[in-house]
């Protein structure tokens, strides 16, 4: 709708104005206009389209913005260096709204726009149904953020995950629990695919390990304000550590309400809750909250230049998954370059062959199931309202 409307308006205006419009609106126009011509993905003229199905609306929209900017930054850098195979790259962003129906529509649109690689995927529940669509079209997916084990359990050959999986995150959690000697743990999820995955996985690993006891494993409904019910349950079970595996909005509220209820134990959150807003929402209660997370620009050494570039381009701070999205685009460009082709099968082969490609999470080599060989999870802690590195688990 949006691009159609904008297109009509722009056609009405003199084309000279068009010359100055940003790369982003050029992308929208291109997406609408070249549908028929661009459908031939292996054509060797015009820009190479990189698809990105991410949440632009809905409650996860802030993260979608971080991801879009991260990807755009990589695209701009690559284009400034002459592009890939002598062609420019172009980002085609479609909305998934963290919703399975919308993501399917978005993926179909991206495919018909002629994208050659997909670098989207934040909400696992919304990314899952897009896999068969891209698979059928022979388009490789480099998933920067979504990390439910379900995504790779399907065994689709076109799926590559550059975020650690739920399993790897759970292992990091367990390592930290053992290290700190927490004896009782309560795990709470928000009923989404990603969150439940970490809950079940962590619970299984902790129970198998036997050094700690899971005294409570429960779910809450996302999108509410009052979590007194789960707070009551936690107070009743009285664990040494609460592990919240959902997103930051609910996480912040639960941490605040736990603190108001007089909870004396520690809280740890999973990567979906690592956001500057967490401590704003949770208030003083956020101090000392741990998180299982891959490295963010804030915690990485030597990322200052990158942050400065990002700020210059978008006049805002990078957020969660900006780096992963940036890396996903760079990885896609690298694979297209190595494959010397925009054909899906060639790119998939090139991705499988990649060894030692430098990313924020370290040198990349995919496992046979197309996940990172090491999750790269570390433990962060909230200090003065910001997430800082607590333990790199090495």
């Amino acid at each position, binding site marked *: 709708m949006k691009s159609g409307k904008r297109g009509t308006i722009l056609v009405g205006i003199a084309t000279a104005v068009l010359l100055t419009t940003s790369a982003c609106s050029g992308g929208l126009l291109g997406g609408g206009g070249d549908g028929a011509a661009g459908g031939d993905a292996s054509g060797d003229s015009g820009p190479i389209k990189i698809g990105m199905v991410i949440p632009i*609306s*809905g*409650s996860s*929209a*802030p993260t979608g*913005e971080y991801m879009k900017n991260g990807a755009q930054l990589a695209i701009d850098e690559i284009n400034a260096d002459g592009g890939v195979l002598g062609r420019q790259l172009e980002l085609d962003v479609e909305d998934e709204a963290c919703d399975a129906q919308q993501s399917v529509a978005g993926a179909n649109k991206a495919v018909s726009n002629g994208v050659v690689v997909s670098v989207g995927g934040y909400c696992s529940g919304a990314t899952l149904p897009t896999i068969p669509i891209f698979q059928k079209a022979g388009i490789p997916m480099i998933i920067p953020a979504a990390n439910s084990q379900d995504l790779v359990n399907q065994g689709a050959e076109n799926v590559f995950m550059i975020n650690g999986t739920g399993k790897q995150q759970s292992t990091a959690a367990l390592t930290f629990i053992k290290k700190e000697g927490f004896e009782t743990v309560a795990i709470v999820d928000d*009923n989404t695919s990603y969150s439940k995955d970490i809950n079940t996985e962590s619970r299984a690993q902790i129970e198998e390990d036997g050094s700690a006891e899971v005294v409570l494993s*429960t*779910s*809450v*409904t996302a*999108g*509410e*304000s*009052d979590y*007194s*019910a*789960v707070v*009551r*349950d936690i107070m009743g079970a009285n664990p040494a550590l609460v592990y919240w595996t959902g997103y930051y*909005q609910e996480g*912040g*509220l639960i941490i*605040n*309400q736990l603190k*108001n*209820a*007089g909870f004396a134990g520690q809280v740890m959150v999973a990567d979906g809750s690592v956001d500057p*807003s967490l401590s*704003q*929402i*949770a*208030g003083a209660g956020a101090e000392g909250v741990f998180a299982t997370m891959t490295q963010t620009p804030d915690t990485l050494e030597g990322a200052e230049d990158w942050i400065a570039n990002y700020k210059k381009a978008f006049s805002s701070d990078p957020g969660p998954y900006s780096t992963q999205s940036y890396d996903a685009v760079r990885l896609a460009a690298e694979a297209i370059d190595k494959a010397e082709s925009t054909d899906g099968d060639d790119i998939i082969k090139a991705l499988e062959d990649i060894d030692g490609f430098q990313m924020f999470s370290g040198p990349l080599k995919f496992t046979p199931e197309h996940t990172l060989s090491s999750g790269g999870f570390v433990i962060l802690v909230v200090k003065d309202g910001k997430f800082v590195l607590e333990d790199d688990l090495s």
Partner: protein
Amino acid sequence: VAQLIWDGLFVGSFYALIALGYSMVYGIIKLLNFAHGDIYMLGAFIGFAALTSLGGIPASLSIGALLVVMLLSMALTGTAGVIIERLAYRPLRGAPRLAVLITAVGVSFSLEYGISAIAGPNPKAFPVRLEGNVFDLIGARVSLPQIILILIAAVLMILLNFYIQSTSTGRAMRSIALDRNASLLMGINVNQVITRTFFIGSALAGAAGVMAGAYYGKIDFLMGFIIGLKAFTAAVIGGIGNIRGAMLGGLVLGFVEAFGSEWFGGQWRDVFAFAVLILFLTLRPTGILGERVTERV
């Protein structure tokens, strides 16, 4: 058990405040105003904007400032409700019920994504946070802000009850609910009364929005969705169209949720609450205080 009752009462009074708007509007023009939950969200955002523009408020004045902002927010959300009625619902008053229902859904989305476009999709931390001493009251952990909020809700509901029962406008509202055409013939200015109904219902939701923002500390543009559904449920439990029923329904839903999650675990809370709703409505389709609708021939 005391804790459960207290938690149920607290959440229930939020449900009740919002349920009132649903129930009043349904009672008077038989419209399920699905945009009502978003009015609650709008109230929270108006409160947020007002408090932010006031700048730093010393903690000692925060309750006072909050009350002022709440009244302001009530006035603005009330006005918003009136405008919505005028623009979106009144032109469709003679149209089939479904058309108006879909319009209400449309208004809901417009409000949500309008606010998202203006204020940004990020959740906002509310500038004033009600935090107070927690003390023990017969086995329940009770905090001062909770008591204040419940009192505010109670005062608003008592005022509303008085307004509906004892003023001429209130009488006019009740008569329109009974029979709009007859009321018109009796010289009641139906449009004006409907406008007032929307104003009052929306103002109550706006008040609840500011209260929720200050107590929970987080607002976002989709915050009205789930609570809107819950309040609608509360209104149906109480007998939709009935003001006292809406208050009672809110509290009942709060209690059912609190006890449900205690007995079956948190993840079963909504299953239990809505199973109770289904059971209840099969036994008593008109709700607790709803009157049996006689078929007019």
